């Protein structure tokens, strides 16, 4: 009863209005327990932690502007004649989808701005996710307990690509229609069911009269709905796990050091939303994107040169462009390997990234939680894998734009295509080796800095004439930070003979794991970090340099 009385007396007293509203809500929603753990939640500070925020905010911007666009867009492929205010296209036949996009761009005040913000935000959203994923990958933030959140993020990236592609196709302009045709050709290449898939997707033969309406519901409802759910789950897990942090003085695996959500991060993150929105609005004001009026409505028998998809689809474009045109005919059937192989590699390139956390945790056999981020140099093999993957991706992007490379740099398109075909196999290997060497070099440098101090730039002449550079010992903070990382020992295959002399069979998986572990953490793959003994030995004798 006492609690009741006290709350009644509070309510009757002159509590501020905000407090009374909060009390009211708490009585129904239990918000105080939620606020207790989250209102002063600590977030660590690092510039790279903003990348995920860029994605979140651009997603919100896309939703806001997208809802506005649906108020004017007609997802229909009925043919109409254009009578809007853009003179060069007047009298032309076009689908209602194209017509309404023209209407938005020329006759709705601010419509062009919202369209451009929507498209720019989509490009930034995907670029943001790409870079955010790299940050998470290279710092090892995907390790336990965050593997599932890595998968959520990965799905957001993949679904984002498809949402982008379907949205890009909606205006039914010449460029996007060509992209849809490409997709149809790729679907046709699927063995056995390809033609059926294509006919079901397009409601018959390409282009038919259905795909804009179908893409529309996929683009505005199905995919964003799933993405919104994933995004909320992603954020809940970020809160639940608490943010990772880099090693440093006072920062351990059991704490999180930073500033509280209220007020600092509320202001910084909230303000950052406006910064992102403001920058995208300014870009949309000055940089035209997807000017459909200069491309015209889609006609399956017309095309423009330099046809390019949006950047995030570029690597699939590269795959399809550089693949030799293999076709195998047998028993009245055709296996269109020239298109189907790229279609299969496309998801494999992505899945390689999705499953990586599970592969690494299998190799290390580490079941502990990790909240301290790795510096990329301290995980040379992982970093090398990441760089090799990016190299692969970039090579394919070059392949996807081979016509632009040829025209802008006056190169032979045949030579570029052959370069990409070779680089597809060679460049990732070279990148892997080079990255690993660089990481080991940086580890050695860290070790030198710990043991011998920082190069001060001061040159001293000794009595006997020798010149030396004075090294300044590092502070304890720096010593701690540079030696805080953990180093795994390669997993060895246990004894193959038990105490009774009976031979144990070593399974293939175990052998593979030992080999991978050696490759990850063997002598070739990491520089042992300095030990206290080494440090004492070097620093105890004076006159060191």
């Amino acid at each position, binding site marked *: 009863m006492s609690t009741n009385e006290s709350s009644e007396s509070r309510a009757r007293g002159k509590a501020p209005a905000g407090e009374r509203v909060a009390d009211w809500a708490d009585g129904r929603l239990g918000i105080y327990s939620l606020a207790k753990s989250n209102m002063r939640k*600590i977030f660590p500070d690092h510039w790279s932690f903003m990348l995920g925020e860029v994605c979140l905010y651009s997603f919100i911007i896309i939703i806001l502007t997208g809802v506005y666009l649906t108020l004017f867009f007609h997802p229909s492929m009925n043919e109409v004649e254009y009578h809007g205010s853009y003179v060069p296209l007047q009298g032309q036949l076009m689908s209602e989808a194209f017509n309404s996009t023209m209407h938005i761009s020329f006759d709705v*005040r*601010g419509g062009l*701005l919202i369209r*451009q913000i929507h498209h720019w935000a989509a490009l930034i959203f995907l670029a943001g996710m790409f870079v955010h994923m790299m940050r998470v990958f290279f710092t090892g933030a995907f390790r336990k307990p965050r593997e599932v959140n890595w998968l959520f993020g990965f799905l957001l990236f993949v679904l984002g690509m498809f949402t982008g592609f379907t949205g890009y196709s909606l205006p039914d302009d010449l460029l996007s229609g060509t992209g849809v*045709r*490409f997709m*149809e*050709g790729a679907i046709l*290449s*699927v063995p*056995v069911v*390809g*033609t059926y898939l*294509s*006919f079901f997707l397009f*409601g018959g*033969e390409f282009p038919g009269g*259905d795909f804009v309406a179908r893409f529309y519901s996929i683009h505005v409802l199905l995919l964003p709905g799933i993405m919104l759910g994933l995004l909320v789950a992603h954020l809940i897990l970020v809160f*639940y796990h608490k943010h990772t942090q880099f090693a440093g003085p*006072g920062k351990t695996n059991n704490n*999180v*050091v930073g*500033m*509280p959500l209220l007020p600092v991060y509320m*202001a*910084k993150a909230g*303000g*950052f939303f406006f*910064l*992102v929105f*403001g*920058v*995208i*609005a*300014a870009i949309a*004001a*000055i*940089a*035209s994107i997807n000017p459909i009026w200069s491309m015209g409505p889609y006609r*399956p*028998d017309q*095309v*423009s*040169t330099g*046809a390019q998809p949006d950047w995030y689809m570029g690597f699939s474009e590269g795959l399809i462009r550089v693949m030799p*045109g*293999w076709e195998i*005919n047998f028993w*009245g*059937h*055709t296996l*269109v390997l*020239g*298109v189907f192989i790229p279609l299969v590699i496309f998801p494999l390139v992505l899945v390689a990234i999705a499953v990586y956390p599970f592969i690494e945790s299998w190799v290390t056999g580490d079941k502990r939680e990790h*909240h301290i981020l790795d510096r990329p140099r301290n995980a040379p093999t992982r970093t090398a894998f990441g760089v090799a993957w990016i190299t692969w991706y970039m090579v394919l992007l070059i392949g996807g734009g081979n016509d632009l490379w040829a025209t802008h740099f006056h190169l032979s*398109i045949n030579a570029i*295509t052959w370069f990409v075909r070779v680089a597809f196999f060679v460049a990732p290997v070279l990148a892997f080796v080079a990255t690993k060497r660089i990481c080991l070099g940086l580890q050695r440098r860290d070790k030198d800095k710990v043991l011998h101090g920082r190069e001060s730039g001061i040159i001293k002449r000794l009595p006997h004439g020798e010149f030396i550079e004075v090294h300044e010992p590092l502070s*304890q903070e720096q010593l701690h930070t540079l030696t*805080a990382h953990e180093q795994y020992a390669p997993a060895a295959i246990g004894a193959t003979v038990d105490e009774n002399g009976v031979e144990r069979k070593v399974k293939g998986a175990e052998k593979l794991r030992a080999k991978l572990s050696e490759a990850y953490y063997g002598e070739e793959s990491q520089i042992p970090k300095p030990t206290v003994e080494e440090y004492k030995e070097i620093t105890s004798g004076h006159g060191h340099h």
Partner: protein
Amino acid sequence: MSSQDIPEENLPAEQDAHGAVGVADDKNPFADPGLPPHEHRVQDIDERAARRSERTVAMLFTVSMLATVGFIASYVGIPHDKSIFVFPIGHINALNFALGLTLGLALFAIGAGAVHWARTLMSDEEVADERHPIEAPPEVRAKVHADFKQGAKESALGRRKLIRNTMFGALALFPLSGVMLLRDLGPLPGTKLRHTMWRKGLQLVNMNTNEPLRPSDVAVGSLTFAKPEGLEEHDEEFQTEIAKAALMIVRIQPDNIKDKRELEWSYEGIVAYSKICTHVGCPISLYEQQTHHVLCPCHQSTFDLSDGARVIFGPAGHALPQLRIGVNDQGYLEALGDFDEPVGPAFWERG
């Protein structure tokens, strides 16, 4: 502002060091020294600097308000079809430019104000928060497992196998209804991809002039696009039909045609090929008259029109289909049948 203006008691040296610096440990020089002491910003010790920050933030918020007023003024005042020249972008829509910049400024100023406020006036002392293991403690785990076993036991799902198996059966089958419902998304392919609108006797109509073509209209070295007679832009099925029937016509000196069948199917060196690339279906539109090569601008498949349109470079897997043509009584080019193989991208049933 000079440092002697700052009250003595506000100087960092006068204040308690927060989270004292760890003293180097004799045993372990790499030991964690703990959180470094908080370093004061000028705003923390000098109220005048703090007030300057306050004014900056307020100014940014005011700029935002003005920019929003500017947005509304632009919306009302600038005609939507006015074009202006802006260096170095060129001619752009004035309304889009004005709306975008004012909106951008209004939003950016709010963001900049909030961030400046957070960085200069809100506390910047780092705080440590404990983490707790994500996994539940053993007793919770045991309780949950016991509860689940109890629940499963009470349901008797494991004991009454008949219920279990029929339930799984029902749950596995009912999604089939959903799959069935997808059947009418489109018709079955049948042989639709094997045929186009072309048939014997249909005249070749110039895509640009919409007039039937005479052999004399096709000059050596030119590239002409054609469609079947009777297919008009306003037709319901125009897009779908032209996606298969689009034709490109070139004239090559008959001596230069290397492929025997190609020569046979041509008319006085005029050859008609499908315009739809056999790779993934882009329309081919670039013709090199000296070499008789055509190039698809999408993925750069290159075909030699003087040699049966075979692929000489790029990702396409087979030659472009040729349409057999002749001349009718009135002297117009006509088709002598449909393509003898499917046009466009290859597919499983193509063979």
